[in-house]
C-alpha cells in the first residue's frame, strides 16, 4: 500500500521581491502622495485654515506633542475598552442566537433595534442618562462596533458540517463539548472576520462619542481645534486616528495568524 505525497497547499516561498511589493512600494506611494499634497499646497498657496500642507500639520501637531499623545491615549483607551466589551457581549450572544430558533427570534428584534438607532443621535441622550464620564463613550463604541461581530460569529457557529454534529452526537458528547470542541473552533475564521470589522468600527464609535461628550481624546481635539481654526492640528488628529485604525486592524490580523494559523483563508474550506 503506497501513499502518494499530498500536494503542498502552503504558499510558495516568497521571492525576495515579495517584501518589496508588500512593504516598500506602498510606503513609497504614500510618501509620494504626501509630497504631491505638499507641492499643491505650496504651488497654489492654499491657506492653512482650509487645507494645511503636510509639513504644517507635522509642525503644529509636534508643537503640542505631549497633549496630542495624551488625547491619543484617551481615544485608544475608549477604543480598546469598547472592543473588549464588544467581544464579551458578542460571543455569548452569538452562542445564544444559535442555541435555539426560539431564542434567536426573541433576540433578533433587540439586535436590529440597536442597529436602527442612529448612534450620533443617541450619544447626547446617553450622556444625560449615564453621566459625563467614560461609560457612555464605551457604550456608544460598543453599540457601533458589536453588531457585525455577533452576526459573523453566529454564522460561524452555524457553519459546522452537519456530519461533524452527527459525529458529536454519535459520541454522546454534551452540548457544551460540541460548542467548545467543534462549533467555536469552526467559527474562528468567521469570528476574526467580525473582529476586523469591529476594531475598525470601534475607532469610529469612540470618535463619535468624543464629539458629544469628552474632555480628552482625538475626537475632542478635532472639535476644539477646528473651533479655533487650528486646522493643521485637526488634520494631525485625523491622521493619527487613521494610523490607529490601520495598526489595530493589523494587530487583529497578526493575532489570527499567530494563534490560529489554520484559520487564515480557510473560512470556507471546512469540508
Amino acid at each position, binding site marked *: 500500500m503506497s501513499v502518494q505525497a*499530498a500536494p*503542498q*497547499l502552503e504558499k510558495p516561498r516568497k521571492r525576495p521581491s515579495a517584501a518589496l511589493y508588500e512593504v516598500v512600494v506602498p510606503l513609497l506611494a504614500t510618501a509620494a502622495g504626501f509630497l504631491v499634497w505638499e507641492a499643491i499646497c505650496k504651488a497654489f498657496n492654499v491657506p492653512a485654515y482650509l487645507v494645511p500642507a503636510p509639513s504644517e500639520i507635522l509642525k503644529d501637531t509636534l508643537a503640542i506633542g505631549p497633549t496630542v499623545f495624551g488625547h491619543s491615549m484617551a481615544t485608544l483607551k475608549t477604543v480598546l475598552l469598547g472592543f473588549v466589551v464588544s467581544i464579551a457581549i458578542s460571543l455569548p450572544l452569538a452562542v445564544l442566537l444559535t442555541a435555539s430558533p426560539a431564542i434567536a427570534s426573541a433576540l433578533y428584534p433587540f439586535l436590529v433595534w440597536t442597529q436602527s438607532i442612529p448612534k450620533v443621535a443617541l450619544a447626547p441622550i446617553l450622556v444625560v442618562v449615564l453621566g459625563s464620564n467614560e461609560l457612555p463613550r464605551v457604550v456608544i463604541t460598543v453599540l457601533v462596533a458589536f453588531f457585525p461581530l455577533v452576526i459573523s460569529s453566529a454564522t460561524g457557529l452555524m457553519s459546522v458540517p452537519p*456530519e461533524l454534529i452527527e*459525529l458529536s*452526537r*454519535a459520541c*454522546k458528547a454534551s452540548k457544551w463539548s460540541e460548542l467548545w470542541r467543534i462549533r467555536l473552533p469552526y467559527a*474562528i475564521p468567521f469570528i476574526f472576520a467580525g473582529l476586523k470589522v469591529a476594531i475598525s468600527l470601534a475607532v469610529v464609535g469612540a470618535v463619535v462619542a468624543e464629539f458629544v461628550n469628552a474632555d480628552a481624546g482625538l475626537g475632542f481635539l478635532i472639535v476644539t481645534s477646528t473651533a479655533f481654526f487650528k486646522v493643521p492640528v485637526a488634520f494631525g488628529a485625523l491622521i493619527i486616528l487613521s494610523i490607529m485604525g490601520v495598526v489595530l486592524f493589523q494587530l487583529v490580523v497578526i493575532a489570527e495568524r499567530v494563534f490560529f494559523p489554520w484559520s487564515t483563508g480557510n473560512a470556507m474550506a471546512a469540508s
Partner: protein
Amino acid sequence: MITLNRVTRIFESRDGDRITALEDVSLSIRDNEFVTLVGPSGCGKSTLLRIVAGLILPTAGTASIGGAAITEPRSETGIVFQAPTLLPWASVLDNVLFPLRMMHKMDSASTDKAAALLKLVGLQGFESKSPRELSGGMQQRVAICRALVHEPDILLMDEPFGALDALTREEMTMELLRIWGERPKTVLFVTHSITEAVVLADRVVVMSPRPGRIAEIIEVKSPRPRSFDNEASPEFHEATHRIRQLIFGQRHVGPGRAAA
C-alpha cells in the same frame, strides 16, 4: 446482530408535507457481516444507516442491535461519512483521537492505538501533519481511523468513497477489505456504485425509491479474497446484472453480459 423489523420513517418538511423515506423495511445483519446498500438517490439508504446509528428513530417498527432497541447513539458504533469532515485545526493524530476525547475515554494507550490505526491505513509518519496537507484519499483514510479508534463492533459507512476519483476509489475499496480482514466487524456500507457494492459485500441490499423500500437482497457468492479483477467471474456478473435489472428495470439492461 442488527435487526430491523418493519421499520418505517416519515419526515415532515417545514411546509407540512410528509415524506416517507423508508417504508416497511425488514433486514437482519449477522455479526461481522459486510452488507452494502445500493439504490438511486432518495431510496432511504442514508436514513436506514442513521437509524442503525441511533441518530434518528423509526416512525414505526423496531430497530435493535443484539436484541436491545436502538434509542440513541451507542458508543460501540463507528461512522464514516462521504466527506472526511476532519477538524482543520487539529493534527492527523488528534483527528483520529477526537471521538475518544468527545467520549472522555482518553487514556495512556489511546495515542498508541491511534498510531497503530494510522499505520494500518498506510499513514505512518503523518501523525503531526495538518489535514490540509493531505490528499482527499488520505483524508478519508484518517476519517476511517477516526471511526475505528474506539474499537467499534459495527462500522457504518455513508458513501465513504463517493467524493474520491475513480482510481483512488478502487484503491480505497481494496484497502477497506484488507482492514475488515484484519479487524473483523459488522459493516453497513451505503454506495451508488454497483461494482463497489458487489466487490465488498456478503450481501447487497438493493433499495427502490419513493417510498424507500428493499427491492431485493442479493447474496454475493464470489469467493474471498476479492478484487476488481473478479468482475469477469460469473458469480460477480450474475450479481451486478441482477442489481442493474432491479435499479434500471428490465428494458435498459440487455441479456447476458450487460453494459457496465
